[in-house]
């Protein structure tokens, strides 16, 4: 019940705003903010009540929905989705507060879209029924479509159409994959009953993977991202980078790896190079962007390359690093987009050449920008380092793929410093242009928007243990499913393919018990 409340409370907010929007702008904003904060506070209950000692799903609700077709309302979270749920409920009220004064037309529609989007995203992370998952996955496109299409920049129509069509192309493939699984699973969409190996598992893997790779986005499926970011309103970018992209990496860790381990093994030599190319390529292209938002957008391509690399390292450190890095990227890139939005509201420009010397006029802004920048660069003591380090040493250690890839990926940390610091220098340092002399520093509301993010940036950097603890078992289960150790191979010889996965789960439980003793 708790989980359902978290998922649908924002939707209740949508209805409330629809009914009460006659009360005026402040009422609309007030409702949205209260609902956003309330959802976050309630979702904290998910954290405190979460049992970190088990890998199984918790807070499960299962109600039959369309029973003839084997569709049920089946939700629950494990240590992986817990964090993405919290990230979503954390960022949404921040976005509402950030958009406080920036929406000039259709305020109620804007806030409704934002809240509806929250429900959609939470649904994706909590669904344990493939059909339900798909419904949320698609439904989330609609509010995003409005957010970019109505409140976006000049080329918003091109950007929205590109964003929606790119995603739909992937979803179409995924739908085929979901149906194929359905027929192989005794006509049930239930994710938790899916086990064993599937016919055409390689094709199924690809059907899911391409859908998720577009969302991530993995090179070369990334070109929708810069356009969508540049045209989206600030909070659209924050949600897009902060949460939406994670749906891709979440999909990989939830579906591609545990359901199709053999296919994942087979395609690793293809995917890992793409991830590494994405790291280097995204960084290099980010370096030469004249537009701040585009720069941050391309930096996302680079950062998400790290996440995919970690996922395919198929070992606990790499996978935990990846999940942590999903949160980290949501925080630091979210912060960067918010900051770019704040400067855009003041100056109505995002072009780097229009700025320079802002530290002098806006010291608070510059300080917070610097912290977000160094978080993104991966400075130890801030969040980004922990995730990146775990991904890299995890990938290096186990040898799921060649160490050469890790060497190249590590070179990405040099490039991150190059593009971020060069940007920071051009915006913040140097002489102040006459046109920028009147720019005011951050106001109290904007500081309140940024502070919670900064808190977590430092917290995860200094003491990531609470975060790692809760995800450890769930990530461990995925690792066991995907990692066919030689001993396991012996055990599985001559066993019908269908029970392979079940065996691996038994093995995992056994090792958990051993660890306990």
């Amino acid at each position, binding site marked *: 019940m708790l989980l359902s409340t978290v998922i649908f409370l924002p939707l209740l907010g949508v209805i409330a705003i629809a009914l009460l929007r006659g009360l005026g702008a402040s009422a609309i904003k007030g409702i949205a903010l209260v609902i956003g904060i309330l959802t976050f506070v309630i979702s904290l209950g998910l954290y405190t009540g979460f049992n970190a000692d088990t890998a199984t799903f918790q807070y499960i609700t299962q109600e039959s929905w369309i029973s003839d077709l084997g569709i049920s309302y089946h939700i629950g979270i494990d240590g992986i989705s817990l964090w993405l749920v919290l990230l979503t409920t954390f960022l949404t009220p921040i976005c509402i507060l950030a958009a406080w004064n920036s929406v000039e037309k259709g305020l109620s529609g804007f806030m409704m879209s934002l809240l509806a989007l929250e429900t959609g995203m939470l649904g994706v992370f909590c669904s344990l029924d493939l059909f339900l998952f798909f419904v949320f996955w698609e439904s989330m496109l609609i509010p995003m479509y409005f957010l970019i299409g109505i409140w976006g920049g000049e080329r918003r129509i091109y950007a929205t159409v*590109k964003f929606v*069509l*790119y995603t739909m192309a992937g979803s179409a493939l995924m739908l085929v994959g979901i149906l194929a699984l359905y027929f192989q699973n005794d006509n049930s969409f239930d994710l938790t009953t899916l086990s064993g190996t599937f016919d055409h598992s390689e094709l199924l893997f690809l059907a899911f993977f391409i859908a998720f790779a577009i969302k991530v986005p993995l090179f*070369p499926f*990334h*070109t*929708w991202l810069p356009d969508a970011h540049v045209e989206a309103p600030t909070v659209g970018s924050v949600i897009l980078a902060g949460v939406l992209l994670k749906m891709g990496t979440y999909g990989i860790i939830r579906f591609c790896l545990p359901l199709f381990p053999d296919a994942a093994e087979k395609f690793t030599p293809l995917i890992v190079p793409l991830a590494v190319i994405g790291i280097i*390529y995204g960084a*290099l*292209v980010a*370096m*030469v*962007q004249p537009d701040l938002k585009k720069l941050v957008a391309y930096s996302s391509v680079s950062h998400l390359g790290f996440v995919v690399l970690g996922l395919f390292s198929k*070992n*606990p*450190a790499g996978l*935990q690093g990846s999940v942590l890095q999903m949160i980290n990227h949501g925080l630091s890139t979210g912060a960067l987009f918010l900051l770019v939005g704040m400067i855009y509201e003041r100056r109505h420009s995002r072009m780097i050449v229009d700025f320079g*010397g802002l*530290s*002098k006029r806006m010291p608070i802004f510059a300080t917070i920008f610097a912290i977000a920048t*160094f978080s993104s660069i991966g*400075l*130890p*003591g801030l969040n980004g*380092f*922990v995730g990146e*380090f*775990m991904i*890299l*040493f995890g990938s*290096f*250690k186990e040898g799921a793929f060649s160490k050469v890839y*890790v*060497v190249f990926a*590590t*070179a990405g*940390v*040099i490039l991150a*410093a*190059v593009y971020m*610091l*060069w940007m920071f*220098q051009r915006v*913040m*340092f*140097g*002489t*102040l242009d006459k046109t920028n002399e009147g720019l005011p520093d951050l106001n109290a509301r904007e500081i309140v928007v940024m502070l919670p993010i900064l808190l977590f940036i430092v917290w995860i950097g200094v*003491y*990531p*243990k609470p975060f*790692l603890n809760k995800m*450890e078992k769930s990530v*461990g289960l995925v690792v066991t499913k995907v990692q066919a150790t030689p001993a396991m191979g012996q055990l599985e010889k001559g066993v019908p393919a269908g029970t392979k996965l079940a065996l691996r789960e038994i093995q995992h439980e056994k090792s958990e018990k051993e*660890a306990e003793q």
Partner: protein
Amino acid sequence: MSKELIVVLLVAPLVGFLINGLFGKWLKGNEKLSGWIGALAVLVSLVCSIIVFTSLNGGAAPLDETLYEWITGESFAFNIGFRVDALTAVMLLVITGVGFLIHVYSIGYMHGDEGYTRYFAYLNLFVFAMLILVLGNNYLMMFVGWEGVGLCSYLLIGFWYDKQSATDAGKKAFIVNRIGDFGFLLGMFTLFAAFGTLDFTSIFDAAKADNFEKVFGASTLIIATLLLFVGAIGKSAQIPLYVWLPDAMEGPTPVSALIHAATMVTAGVYMIARSAVLYDIADTGQVVAWIGVLTAFFAATIALTQNDIKRILAYSTVSQLGYMFVGVGVGAYASGIFHLVTHAFFKGLMFLTAGSVMHAMANELDMRKMGGLKSKMPITHWTFLVGALAIAGFPFLSGFWSKDEILHSAWGSEPLIYGIGLITAFLTAFYMFRLIFVTFYGESRVEPEVASHLHESPAIMWLPLAILAIPSALIGLLLGWGGHDSWFHHFTKSVFPEAHHDASGNVIVFMIISSVVGLLGIAFAWTRYSKQVPSDEPTGTLHRLLANKYYVDEVYNALIVQPVKNGSHFLLWKLVDNGIIDGIVNGVAAIVRFIGGLLRRFQTGVVQAYIVSMVLGIVIFLAYYLFFA
């Protein structure tokens, strides 16, 4: 010595940073207070360091304890923990001792600066990060400090951020250091892959085990130590990554003294001394020593022709760091660290005196516009002279002892390294006294309006100079008397592996040779520059090559910076991203639209047209069946 003491030692500068950083706005009206908060924070650390030192010197066991678990999982554990042994204690004293004096000096030097509180916040943060670096009991914590000092270096080099050259220099420093960090990271990955931990004690014990090669493979340690050395090359400004350090002189001069002479840049030397066990087993010290000696020579030749006093000191620092690497490279770890200590004092001193000169000369750095400062600034002159004599290896001053130990050990390992090191010693004495003669002696060439303000610095600045001059002169004698049997060697004995090659030859002979070479350098400088000012234009090809620093910056720019920039812009962004990938995406859309456009033609809504096509279709089908079926 307890864990709590170490925590206090470590956290005090952090507290200073937080006070100045968060409440700087309110402290602005009272800059003295802000400065003293910064200095006192370091004083607390200094007192703790002295306690640590005395208890270790009194025979207390080294401390190796975990503070808390940082990044942990079932198969990996990285903790925040301390290791305090003799090597740590030496570093602690240098960092907090020199650091405290430089904080005090800064109170006067930064007087009236707009960013006064920000300056002390950064400086405290630096000390905190540097303490993490030397206190860590594992490589990852060392790396945390390593990056932290890099951040502070970036912030302080670009402290005057409206100056383009300053922010360029800060950025360059951070990025070049990151190239080194790339090696450090891979080195850690290699160590972790082999040992499953990054703790010093566990790794060193495992490496020392007899069956090591069987278990881990012979190449593991070779690769790991070389990769770690890449990190040291970046942080300690050795060939080919030294290019950031001369530019780093854009920062306030006390920063150059503390970060870019006494402490941070020596982190690479500390790292290798800390990993002495690994370098010994892997036998990669030769590489370290060669890079070191070549850097020492190369940087010294550049220093010969520069006219900017801070740049001369910067190249001198690069060169002296090279000596330290020779020391740790040939297995004389204690001697390398000994030179680190003496250098911290005399080079820190010289930077501060340079700052004193700048303070008096309205920030002028070109020594051709100075001359005859001796009479106007007697304390600055005398203290600088002490530093210069120390670095030149003047008998019985501190540099004489430490440099001589290194050269002596180098002779036992590889005579060629000794030879190059000796030539470098000559060059060092020459360029340093060229600086002295041109700046402090001869006719005054100071511009009249500057000359009228020329004055000795206030007490808050000259007192630290005077205090630093004492160890610059004497610490070598106190700690180094007796060469390889000296107090310093005894104190650090427990940390380092036994030296392989006994220093051969008579120590006295080496000392005499070194002294003569140093005195010759001074004499040669006297003959050339006691009356004469360096020419404005380089004379001859070699001179031009040196004056332009071998054009290394230009070569890097042409071969790396520009190609990467242009390649990313034109090739990757414009061609691949916008051209090819988006071309395909938009192309697919265009094809769909085109086909849709074609099909639309058939949907005209004109009934006659539909009938015509129906009839045509029937005819074609009939024809097919009649003639082909």
